[in-house]
Every structure is written in structure tokens, then in C-alpha cells.
């Protein structure tokens, strides 16, 4: 099992990269668990999926009904059933949305149960692919463990690059034990290509791909069409396939 996490500042196109990687992987012969760990929750739309409830929502419902349950209810088993019930099942991939962040109460126990359940679920797939916000929240809480490769997506904006730098430092700070840290440059044009490459070198991150600005993505976004339906000759689709091969997928 390989676990790939994709992160970056909002708006840099990290969810698009995640969706295109899932498209690439499922067109091959893999079974993938896709996890949307960004509370903004854009991955389902990018894949063309609708999600009724989330892991966070299920955790909350366990906490709410807890005192009314028969005292000897096995809560791990109950939560496991709830998590399975929110898993969106598609051909070749399943999608799990982490959803709402924690409220003010105590989540120690619920998260402890959840860690075990997430590990168990993940172990059923060849590849786990996570779309996560730049704060790496669920990674830092170890709700999702053992990420092998982290892809930091950035566009040409100064703030995108700064975020990339922060993520790089955060990985060390959180002691996340990630094997490979890569940077993916997105929305690359002929005019910014060279400077972006320089920045990537400065960041001291392994540059694994440069995705050209793709008119198809812009059109699909505008129409609200799932990116999973992009034609195979789209510039971004071609480049993402190259990236996947480079990181051994």
C-alpha cells in the first residue's frame, strides 16, 4: 500500500491534481481510496461524486447519541459501521470525506477509535490518495498515518510558494515521517516557467512536474463539470500521468 497526500495553498489547483491522479490510477489497474481531508471539500465535485455525510459528521453523531446507547455497545464497531456508511463506492475507487472539523468538546476517545478504523479501512486498498489543506490537520492528529509521498502543489503566486515553504517546514516540525516530499508547479506558462523552476530549487524541494496552464480545466471549472471527465489529450492530464510515473505509481 502506498499513501500519497496532495496539499498546497487553496486555489493552486491541488484538488485538480488529486482528481487527475485518481483518474489516472483508476484507468490503470489499481483500487484507490480517495480521502478528502480539506474541510472545504472540493474533491467530490472534481470527481463528479455527491457525498451525503462525512467522517466528521459520523464522529459527531457518535458523540451525540453516546449517552443514549446501551451501555455495553461496542463503540468502535458502531463508529466503524458509520464510517463505512459514508464511504462513496465507485468503480475502482472509494471516496471518504473527512468533513467538519472538531467542535469544542473532547475528541481524544473518538479520534483514538477513528485512527484504528481509518488504518483498517486504508489497508484494503493498493493506493490511498489524500487531498489535504495546507495545515495538514488530519495528518498532524495522526488520523491518517504513514504518508509515503507528499506532493506540494503551487502556482506561480508568491503566496503559493510561501505556503509550500511552510508546508515543508511543518512536515519536519510535526515529525510526519514522510518518505518523499515533492513540489508540483501548476498553471505554468512560457513566461513564468523559468522563474518558477528557480523558486523550486530555492525551496529545496524535489520538483516532480510542471503542469501547463490548461484551458480545458478553466472551461470545466466554469461549467462546473467534473475534472475526471477531461479529454485524454488535455495538457494537464498528460502531465499528471508523467508525474504519476515519476513517483512510481
Amino acid at each position, binding site marked *: 500500500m502506498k499513501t500519497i497526500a496532495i496539499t498546497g495553498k487553496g486555489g493552486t489547483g491541488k484538488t485538480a491534481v488529486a482528481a487527475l491522479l485518481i483518474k489516472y490510477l483508476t484507468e490503470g489497474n489499481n483500487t484507490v481510496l480517495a480521502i478528502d481531508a480539506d474541510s472545504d471539500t472540493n474533491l467530490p465535485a472534481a470527481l463528479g461524486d455527491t457525498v451525503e455525510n462525512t467522517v466528521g459528521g459520523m464522529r459527531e453523531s457518535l458523540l451525540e447519541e453516546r449517552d443514549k446507547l446501551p451501555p455495553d455497545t461496542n463503540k468502535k464497531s*458502531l463508529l466503524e459501521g458509520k464510517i463505512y456508511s459514508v464511504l462513496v463506492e465507485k468503480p475502482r475507487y472509494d471516496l471518504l470525506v473527512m468533513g467538519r472539523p472538531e467542535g469544542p468538546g473532547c475528541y*481524544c476517545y473518538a479520534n483514538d477509535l477513528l485512527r484504528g478504523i481509518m488504518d483498517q479501512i486504508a489497508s484494503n486498498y493498493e493506493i490511498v490518495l489524500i487531498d489535504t489543506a495546507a495545515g495538514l490537520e488530519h495528518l498532524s492528529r495522526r488520523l491518517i498515518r504513514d504518508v509515503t509521498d507528499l506532493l506540494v502543489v503551487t502556482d506561480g503566486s508568491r503566496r503559493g510558494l510561501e505556503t509550500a515553504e511552510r508546508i515543508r517546514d511543518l512536515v519536519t516540525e510535526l515529525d510526519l515521517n514522510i518518505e518523499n516530499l515533492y513540489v508540483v508547479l501548476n498553471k505554468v506558462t512560457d513566461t513564468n516557467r523559468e522563474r518558477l523552476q528557480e523558486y523550486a530549487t530555492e525551496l529545496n524541494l524535489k520538483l516532480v512536474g510542471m503542469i501547463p496552464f490548461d484551458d480545458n480545466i478553466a472551461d470545466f471549472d466554469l461549467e462546473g463539470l467534473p475534472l475526471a471527465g477531461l479529454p485524454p489529450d488535455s495538457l494537464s492530464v498528460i502531465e499528471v500521468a508523467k508525474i504519476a510515473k515519476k513517483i512510481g505509481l
Partner: protein
Amino acid sequence: MVIKMAVVGCPFEMSPMYEGERIRKDDLYVELAGPKSKGFEIVRSAEMNEIEDGKVTLIGPDLKEMEEGSNYPYAMIYRIAGEQVEPDIESIVERRNHDFQNYIQGYMHLNQRYDIWVRVSKEMVSKGLESLKQIAEATMMMFKNELPFIEKIEATFITDMTEVEKELEEARKVYDARDTRTRDLHDEDVDTFYGCTLCQSFAPTNVCVVTPDRVSLCGAINWFDGRAAAKVDPEGPQFPIEKGEVIDELGGEYSGVNEAAVRLSGGMFDRIRIHSFFEYPHTSCGCFEVVGFYMPEVDAIGWVDRDFKGTAPNGLPFSTMAGQTGGGKQVVGFLGIGINYFRSPKFLQADGGWKKVVWMPKALKDKVVESIPDEIRDAIATEEDAADIESLKSFLQEKKHPIVDTWAAEEAEEEKAAPDVAPAEAQAMGGMPTLAPMQMPAMSLTGGAGGGLKIILSNAKITVDKIIVKKKE
């Protein structure tokens, strides 16, 4: 352990390695029970002569007659007998159905009771799994191997909706009766409590003791949760604490708990009285759902929960008191608890229980109102009745809260014991500045210069190495 089921005529393997094996929709032959259908599992005890060992009855369509990719209702009823088999062990045996069936390759079992959710994989069917009877036989074999006190077992599996619904109604009665018995389990009925160290990352000296009559402070872990987790991983965050000798039944003090307290707090605490507020109370982690605070002016306790945004009669909001109390300390004058502890029959029994409670936010009171004794229910004030100590006092007097009687009694006693402080005290009753209880734990007393001070110590044992009282400069 891998059991080749070929020996008993089944085409699948059984092993713990298949535990957690997920059958995806793509690989699904049929789905049984689950969110889209109905079902349940139950174990009943019976007399030896009532059971035909190994017998399997299937009511409704079998796997072969099912339509691929569809949902069917599913009930699994096991009847067991043996010299040591009695109704009390039914639920423990029943839980094992989940474990054993998850060992079956190509068969996924989730949840318990009427929430079960089962999937059978296409692969197993193509490999020769023909009948749910094979599943029943394999499971029964596991039951007998792993739980040798089961001498005879038979099973009835049902996949017919009408039959499932009919039997489910019966099963619900059994579950309900069991739940009533379970709720009736108390500290004195068990030899083992459970500890939890989940909070120790930020409250390193916290000693969380979970007993049948006391839920964890976060409210999430009851005694049964502790038992279940400790059984799976005794080295994990929840673990058994042997009760040991009973030191004080009423206060809930046990030698085993005290020993655990020393161990878990790194020697910081060596006594914990589980049902006491004032003497060696339970430590407070920081995760607690509700914090209790002593109000010396009324010699009673108020409670405020995390959701209450206002301030308690002592002038403090939850967050301030939580900050003062948390961190794994034993703070006399404050106590963190889980909401379900209000429902415990041993709720602060060392201190008089509900008779000592005078204030709680309305939403919290409503939540636990059924557990408040009739005679005291209306005498507990909420933010609608009293916002400060003065209005609380009047409310308690008006509603004849039992605490009011103890005021008079104690004043009389104090007068007898220390007549010369009486005048100062009488003066203090009117004009005394509010003694903020958040300063109680440190015992730094304010307001000495003006009108004097009243300290009520009820039923107290005090050990002091050194005490210095100085006039404020």
C-alpha cells in the same frame, strides 16, 4: 491460526488475517442486512436437552437463489447450552459472532445487534461458497473451539423479510431486558475498574478511573468501553485497574485505585476517592464536560458545562474554571466530571449527593432532570433563577433547599465552638466581599482588612505542614 475449512466441506479459509477485510461494491455478490435492509444477530441460552448440536436451519432464500448485487434481510439466531451457560453470558458470546465471522475469507461483518451489515464477495461464491449454512457451520465451529463452555450450539439463519421482522421484535425485547440489567451494574458488582491515559499527553498526572458508577470525565468512556478496549489491547490507552481492598465504600476509595494513582501520576497522588468532591477528589484532566465549583457562601456546589456561555453565580465562566481545574490536578473546591455521572446512583455520595447541588445551567439541568431526586429538583437554581450568590441564597431559602437547614446548624455549632469570632462573622454575612472560589485551592484569602471572614469546614480533615497568615500590605 488458519483453519482450512475444506475439512468441514467449506471452500474458504478462516483466519484473523481476514479481519477488517473490506468487500467493495465492485466485488460484492450480495449485501445482507445493513443500512438498506433489516437484520439482527442474537445468542440465546437454552437447556441441554433443547439443543440439537450442530443443527442449522435456514428460512428464506439461500445464496444460490439470491440475485447478484442485491440486498437481503439477514438474521442470525444462535442457541447455546452447557453446564456453565446462563443468560448473563449471552451478550458476551453474541459479540464474538462479529470476530469469528470476520475471520471468514470473502465475508465482511460490521456492527452488532440490529445494526449488523454483512457482505459476501463474488470471489467466494465463484470459489464454491454455496450456502449460508456453510457460514453458520463455520461460525458455530469457532464458537465451540474458542468458547469451550459452549457444549451444544444450533443456529437459525433467516433471509425472509417477514420472518426477520417477526423475530426482530422478539429480539428487541431481549436486548431491552439485557440493557436494563446492564444499567444496574454497580461498583460493588465488579472486581476491576478501568483506567485511561488518553489525556496524559496534556495532563501528565491525570488519573482517570472509570467504574460502573462513574463515566470518564470526557463522558466518552464507560466501564464497558474500558473493558472492551482493555481486552483487545491491555497495553493500550485503556487498561484494567484491580479494585483491591475497599477502604471506604461510601467515598469510593480502594487500595487498587490508590496504587494506580501513584503509578499513573508519577507519585503526585496516592489517594483518590471516586465519589467525593471535597476529600481526595478524582483528578481533573481538562477534557471534562462539566466542572463543579464549591461556593463557600452557601456551602454547596454548582455545576457549569462546556456549552454554557454565561458566568456561574461565582462570577466565572466555564473556561476560567476549566483552566484553573484542568491539567491532571486534584483540586479541592473544583471537580471535572462527565455528564453521565449526574445519572449515577453514587453521584458524589460521600458529600450527600444531590443535596449538595444548588445551581446548574438550565440546558444541563434539563438533560439530567430525570436523575434529580423529586424533593430537590425544583430547589436547584439555574441562570434563570439566580445569577449571583445573593440571588442564589434567596432562591434556595424560598425553595427550601435542604442545604439551607445546614447553614443554621453550622452557625450554631460555630458559635458554640468559637464564641469570640461570632461578632466578626455576623458582620461578615452582610458586607463580606465575595470570596472567589477560584482562589480556594491556593487558600489565598482576600478581604481580611474590612469585615472579617467566614470559613466553613464541614466534616473536614486537614493536614497542614505550615501555614502563614499575613496581613495584606
